[in-house]
């Protein structure tokens, strides 16, 4: 299939090279990958922490954006960020309306990494409690308002 071939290519590239601070945790099948990311500079919010991203690919990848969320696993937390809900849902235009097939797993990881690096606010998005309680797991069903270009 379309998605599988492309993912195989990406996996092949990733095994050859990955930018510093980004690693592959698991990619056992071609529908869910887990990637580890680390903030490299001395941002006190994320120092010495490793975070885990989960990529869910549909059959229409890369035409359709993957579902990318942070996941909580043993010893791995969800990073504090004004655009990241405490259930791991990420509000990033790149993963929604600004997705294009030119993006790939590596570039998404790098975007999220830099989103963390540049952040200074130790806070969750407004309405985090309600959002988490309402049980949205899939970012696809959410119409985020990308109103804040500063973070």
């Amino acid at each position, binding site marked *: 299939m*379309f998605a599988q*071939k*492309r993912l195989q*290519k*990406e996996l092949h590239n990733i095994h050859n090279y990955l930018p510093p601070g980004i690693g592959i945790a698991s990619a056992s099948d071609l529908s869910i990958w887990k990637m580890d990311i680390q903030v490299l500079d001395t941002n006190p919010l994320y120092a010495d922490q490793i975070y885990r991203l989960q990529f869910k690919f549909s059959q*229409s990848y*890369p*035409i*359709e954006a993957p579902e990318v969320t942070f996941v909580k696993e043993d010893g791995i937390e969800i990073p504090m960020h004004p655009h990241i809900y405490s259930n791991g849902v990420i509000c990033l235009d790149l993963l929604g*309306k600004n997705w*294009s*097939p*030119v*993006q*790939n797993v590596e570039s998404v990881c790098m975007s999220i990494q830099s989103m963390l690096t540049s952040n200074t606010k130790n806070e969750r998005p407004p309405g985090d409690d309600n959002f988490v309680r309402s049980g949205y797991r899939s970012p696809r069903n959410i119409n985020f308002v990308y109103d804040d270009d500063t973070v």
Partner: protein
Amino acid sequence: MSHLQAPRSTSWRAASGVASESETDAGKYSDATLTANEDSSAEEPGLLIPLKSQSPPVVEDEDDKCWICFESRADELIESSNHGVWRKPCKCALTAHEGCLLDWISDLEKTPSSMNKPIQCPQCKSNILLRQERSTIVELGKSIERNVRRTNSVAIVAGLGSAFFVTSTVYGVNAIYLICGTKEANAIILGPGGRDFQWTWRLAVGLPVIPLILVVSRTRLLDATLPILPLIFFCHTEPFHLTLPPSPAITLALLPYVRSIYEAAYNKFLLPWDKKWTTEIGPTAATLATDDNDVGLEIQVVEMDENEEEEEVANGNADAHAPVAHAGADAGAEGQDAWRVERELVLGPETANLVVGALLFPGVVASMGGLLGKIPFIRKILPERFHRNILGGCLFVLIKDIFTLYYKYKRAKQRRSREILNYQKRAPRREANATTGMRR
């Protein structure tokens, strides 16, 4: 679906095979830059595709990689792909399979927000041009799709508007029949003698305007215009001739003046008292600066009415069953006549009071008229139902104002007598009686 709507549109569909087809059958293809506004494409001469040109040959490089499926030309040497020919649609380094690009574009077209945007290379943001067969049906469908979106809101507004118009007209007809009685109403609506009915502009405008005027006449907004309106609507058939009692047309024409005179009199003689008592009901002198109707505090009031006394006796505990009166709720009742003091149209419960009161008014007037009709003396002086109704309406306003004023007076008096009770385990009955007595 809309980037296809550029003035002259086509696309880069022309592959080697397709291109030759377009040469032989040029009429089938329109020469247009699909995405583009013509301006931007004109700036870049290379972007305008001459009708019979083929798409420029792509320099083959084995390292070329499709930016969508990530397959390279080298891969295709090993395994054939079904993604179509290679395309290099923009000035940057991105190359792609035609099939991949078309899939991507179809996906973009799914979202309505992208309908009117040209397709851009995600890397260099230059427009990607396509050539496609021109189809009148597709163009038509697209423009319908676009316009339906736009028309819907207009249609909804228009629909609600006409529903409102019809309701208002029916209300107007009802009000006229209620107030004027069948005979006069027929004369007004159907014309003299009930024959030669014509749907004139007076009816078309006048009838639906009735509820609006009723509402507005409870405010100051139209004070200047109201006296003129009846002249326009009723005094067109015959010249004035004074009779006693005056004809409906003249009565109606005079009503706004009566209203103004009454208001002036009320404002001169009664308004000071009205204001004084309203102020007394309000919080206190300390908070007088705030609006009287802003009594948002919840005050627990121990009302000592007979019924409650019985209850108290039965329960033997006054405090536990002291009814709670919300001053806020009372403010609503005050609001009903607050228009005399502050006759501004404000949104809120007062507005609802005002509108509902105004719309019910014809019904009230008719029943007052009906009551008056039961009195033989009045029936003798005013044989027409219409005149009894008008008299009834005036009486109603008068009674209502007097009652409202009296009610305010009593409330102000009650307020002055109010005192807070100390907590008692058991309310001694005598004391309760004493308080009640004082209030009377």
